[in-house]
Structures are given as C-alpha cells and as structure tokens.
C-alpha cells in the first residue's frame, strides 16, 4: 500500500479511471496548470487538454455543458474550485442535472462527478468556506459524498466515476495534504459508513474533516476511560442508517458532529432519524455544528465556528455523567 495525500489519492483515482475509460474527462478553471489546489497536476501531460480541459470563468456553463456532454455519452468530472462558487451553477445542478432523468421518464442519465472543495480553510472568510452538504442531501436525484481520508478519497472517487448518477463530491480543503495509506484495490460503496473506532459508551457520527476531529476526540476520551464509537458516514446520500442505529442501540448515546451550520444541517437528519427509530437513549442526543453565523477572516473569530475535538469530548463527558433516563 502506498502512502499518499488526500489530494493525490483522488488524482490517482481520476487518472486510473481515465486510463480505463476514454469517455471520462475533467473540466474546470485552470485545470491545465493543475487546478487551484494542484489536484490535477500532471494530468494534462498524460491526457491532453481535451480531456483535462480548461474552462472560462463560467460555473453555470461548466456545470450545464458537462451535463449536456454527459447526456450524449461522456462521463465528465466537473471541478467547481470552491463549493461556494458552485452556487453560481445551482439551477444547472438542482433543476437540470438532478431532475432530468426523472422528468424525461428515464430517457437520460447524468453520470457526472461534481467536485466541490468545501469547508473552512484558514482565513478564507465567508465566501470561500462553506459546508453545504446538507443542501444536496435534500435534493432527489443526487448522490452526496464527503470523504475524510486519502483511502476514502481514492475509493469513493473511483466509485463516483463509475456511478451512473450525478455525484456531488465534496472534498475538504483543509486536508488536501493529509497523508495516509491507500489500498488501490478498494472501491468505495455509497451508503456504507466507515467505523473509525469502536466503543461501547457513546456513538459519534460525523463526516468529512470533522470525522478526523471526532477520531481525535475519541482518542482523548479513551485516555479517560470512555469508549467512543466513531462512525464516518462518508456519503450523506445514501447514508448508512443501519450502522448508526446499530451503534446507538449498543451505546445508548449519540453525538453528531459536523462543520456546517447546525441549524438545518444534515446532523438534524441523523438525530431525527435516531429519534424516530424509537431507540432508547440514556441521554438526549447532542448535535455539534457551527452556530448560525458566518465564517470570519480573523482566526479567533473563525475558530468560534469550529467544532473541536475538545467540544466533542466534553459533550461525551457530560453525557456519561448524565443520569440514565
């Protein structure tokens, strides 16, 4: 197994898929020079500028044109640069791509991977820091994936490219350089969570970079004798309800942690689903996410919106202290 960065893992997946299937191509601004986060470095040399295509600053056209190209038989990988800019192509994604197959009675497909680098990245401020994965999980027709590790960024990218549905693929900008072992024989499966750590005391559900934070929290909790089970959902639609419900049934305690704004975030879906399941909890569930404020440039203000390992651990501590219901 090779050790590689989160960025390189996805790049490898893209390159392999492009070698195997001529119909796969990438399109986005500056891709010919490797893309803004160097996730494409070297690819234009191998595949040429038609398949690693530059684009005008035209998010709506990048999304819309890639969709048109998908309808006639290609398999585009669309680079949105920052998830925030993808909002310039919302009609294309939500009204067109997500709905076409259904609206046209099954006549069309949109096998597309829509890459949207997400999340806080030091001092990028409010227009370059958003986590809107919950939005896309709400839209029928879309698959939503937020890998947190190099292994998963490799395996899920392979799965996303192989998928015949449009996949909103949210990579976290903060972990481009995160290194890890990658087994390239693995292919991801949407709707299958990864058990990042097992434990019987409290279930921590998370995804994207916050899953890494949650794992760190679980380490700290272990040091003081609390066994946390960390579930990284990896994909939000479909999501692994079974894994969450099974774990909660075992631990009786649930924390959901994510970077997005808590209000209306996907954490609510997880907590609500557990509540509706009738699972017996020994303490009320806890949701940790950003307050309903905006991401600041100043680091001390930016930090006020972050969910930290300490916050997760503290929530677990409090739950363990609470009287069982």
């Amino acid at each position, binding site marked *: 197994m090779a050790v590689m960065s989160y960025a390189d893992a996805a790049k490898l997946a893209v390159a392999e898929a492009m070698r195997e299937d001529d119909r796969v191509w990438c399109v986005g601004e500056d891709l010919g020079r490797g893309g803004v986060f160097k996730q494409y470095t070297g690819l234009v040399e191998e595949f040429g500028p038609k398949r690693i295509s530059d684009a005008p600053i035209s998010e709506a056209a990048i999304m*819309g*044109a890639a*969709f048109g*190209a998908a309808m006639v038989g290609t398999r585009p990988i669309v680079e949105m640069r920052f998830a925030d800019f993808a909002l310039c192509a919302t*009609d294309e994604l939500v*009204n*067109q791509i997500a709905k076409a197959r259904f609206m046209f009675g099954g006549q069309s497909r949109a096998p597309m991977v829509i890459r949207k680098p997400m999340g806080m990245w030091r001092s990028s401020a409010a227009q370059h820091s958003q986590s809107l994965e919950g939005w896309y999980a709400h839209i029928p*027709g879309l698959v939503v994936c937020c890998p947190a590790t190099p292994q998963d960024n490799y395996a899920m990218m392979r799965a996303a490219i192989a998928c015949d549905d449009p996949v909103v693929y949210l990579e976290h900008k903060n972990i481009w350089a995160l290194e890890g072992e990658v087994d390239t024989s693995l292919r991801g499966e949407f709707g299958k969570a990864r058990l990042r750590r097992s434990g019987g005391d409290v279930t921590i559900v998370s995804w994207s970079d916050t899953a890494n934070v949650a794992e760190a929290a679980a380490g700290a909790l272990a040091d003081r004798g609390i066994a946390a089970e960390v579930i990284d959902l990896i994909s939000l639609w*479909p999501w692994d309800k079974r894994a969450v419900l099974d774990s909660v049934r075992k631990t009786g305690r649930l924390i959901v942690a994510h970077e997005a704004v808590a209000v209306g975030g996907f954490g609510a879906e997880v907590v609500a689903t557990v509540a509706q399941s009738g699972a017996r909890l020994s303490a009320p569930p806890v949701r940790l996410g950003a307050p309903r404020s905006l991401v600041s440039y100043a680091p001390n203000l930016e930090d006020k919106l972050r969910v930290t390992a300490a916050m997760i651990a503290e929530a677990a501590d409090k739950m363990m202290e609470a009287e069982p219901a």
Partner: protein
Amino acid sequence: MSLRNFDTRAGLARLILMERIRAFEETARRAAVEEGLVLGAIHLSIGQEAVAVGLIESLRRDDYITSTHRGHGHTLAKGADPQAMMKELLGRAGGCCGGKGGSMHIADFGVGMLGANGVVSANITIAAGAAHGVKLLGGDQVVVCFFGDGAANRGPFLEGLNWAGVFDLPILFVCEDNRYSASTLTAAMTSGNVAGRARALGLRVTEIDGNDVEELAQVAAEITARIRETGQPEFLHALTYRLDGHTYFDPATYRPEGEAERMRAERDPIARQRELLFEAGLSVAELNTVREAARDEMAAALEAARAAPWPDEASVFDDVQDVGSPAMEAF
C-alpha cells in the same frame, strides 16, 4: 419567396409538417380548454411553426436538438410520435416521459430531442455541452439549440455561446424571436440586440424571416452543412410572432390592438406556404386535405391519449437515481 427554384414536393412536405404541428397544438388546446384533459400550462408555438420545420429538416435523426417551454413543434419536427407526446400532455402511461414531465419537459431521446426545459435559457449551456460531447466522442452530429428572445437576457446565453466559441463546437443557436417574453415586450427589457450579442461573442450570425419556411429550410441546410464541415458554432436569428397567448390561458391583452390579427393575416407561415403551393399548382382541395389529415392524425392521438391509463403509481420511485433510490427507502 419566389417560385423560381421552388421544389413543390419539398414545399408540400414542409406544409404537412407545419400543419401537423399546428393541429397538434390546436387539438391540445381544445383538450385543455374544453375538457381539462391537458393538465399543466402549455405554451403553444402557433405562428412559429416554420422555424422548427425549416431548421430541423436539414438534421439527421442522430443530430441533437434542445428546446424550451415552447417545444411541441421542435419535438414533432425532430420526428417524435405525436401519440406519445399527446399522452405526455395528458399525463398518461405511454407518454414520451412516462407522464412525469408534461409539455414543459417533453423529450424524445430516440430521435435526438434532448428535452424541453422549464427554465428559460438553461438549455443553452446544455446544448453547448451536447456539442462538446459529440466532439469529444469524435462524432459528426450537429446540435441545434432553440430558445426565445427573452432567453438572451439570462447569463447562460453569454456563457453558452462563449463556450461554443471557445471550444469550436458543432452547434447552431437559434433565437426564435417572437418579440415577447410572457407579457413583456422583449425589446423594452433588452439593451442592444440579440444578433449583435451573438456576433460579439464571436459567432457567425444569420438573420432571417422566421415565418418563411422555404427560406429557413434553404439557409438552415447551408448552415448545418457548414457546421458539420467546419465544426464551428453559428447563430441564427429568426424573427417570428406568437399568434397565441404565452400560455393557452393567456388572453394576451398586453399586445397592441390589432397586432395579432394583422400578423395572423399577413405573416402566418402556414397561410404563406399554402399560397405558395397554390401558385405552384396545388388545388385548394389538395391543400385542405393536408390540413384535414393533420387534424385527423392529432384527433386520433388525442383519442389514444384519452384512452391511455394513468402511469403506474410505482413509477414515482423509478428513474430518480440508481444509488440511494427512493424505491429502497421506507416512507
């Protein structure tokens, strides 16, 4: 259009297709107004049939088109089955979209009709992308993208035309200028003009009378042949007129007194084509037969649609997505 070089057979075929489009829409309108059989809003292209017919004639079956909310004519001209279309308008099983889309999402991928669109201008980037896909796959198809004058005021007009110009794509953008954007005179909301914008976006532009099917057919044949040859995008501005309201229930009282009547009297493309064929020797009876045949065909389509069942309820969970399909969820 003069009679010199007039090909009567081809001209008759054009009339037949225009009559079929008109009959389809008049039948659908009657089914909507009188019987409430057509369920959602339908946007009729009555008066604009020449654009669809003249343009699409030069396309191959495997060429692609995209359309707008006003897409019946384009869809029929591309070769779709009117029965399947009528079923779609009635929301029935056997509709070309399984009853899920209705008039505004009419599509027939089997004949290269990649869909009407309920969002104005959205089909422009999609069409450019279809042409991009053709080029990537090494095909020699041409894409024709139809849109209205109002659509030229949305961003995708600029982004889609620029895209086609930058990537040298085999596409013809057709602005079907009927002067109105719903109840608004488009000129009042447009700075500069549409053809000029296309020119400034680097495309070769042709301006044409959109109610003269003969000229349209001739010019379209030249343009689409050139696009197939060069792979370069072009733009056609076709000036036409919407004889009806924006939707079938729009009385269109915002139009200047007498305008529609004058247009109907002077510029109806079907009346013009009938005259031409009459001059070329066809009898009124022959011409009326064409009309009757079209009406009969569409009446039969309506009967077939009326008799068709509603879609299977289980299909509401089909064709959403493979991964995470709602069919697998319990609700």
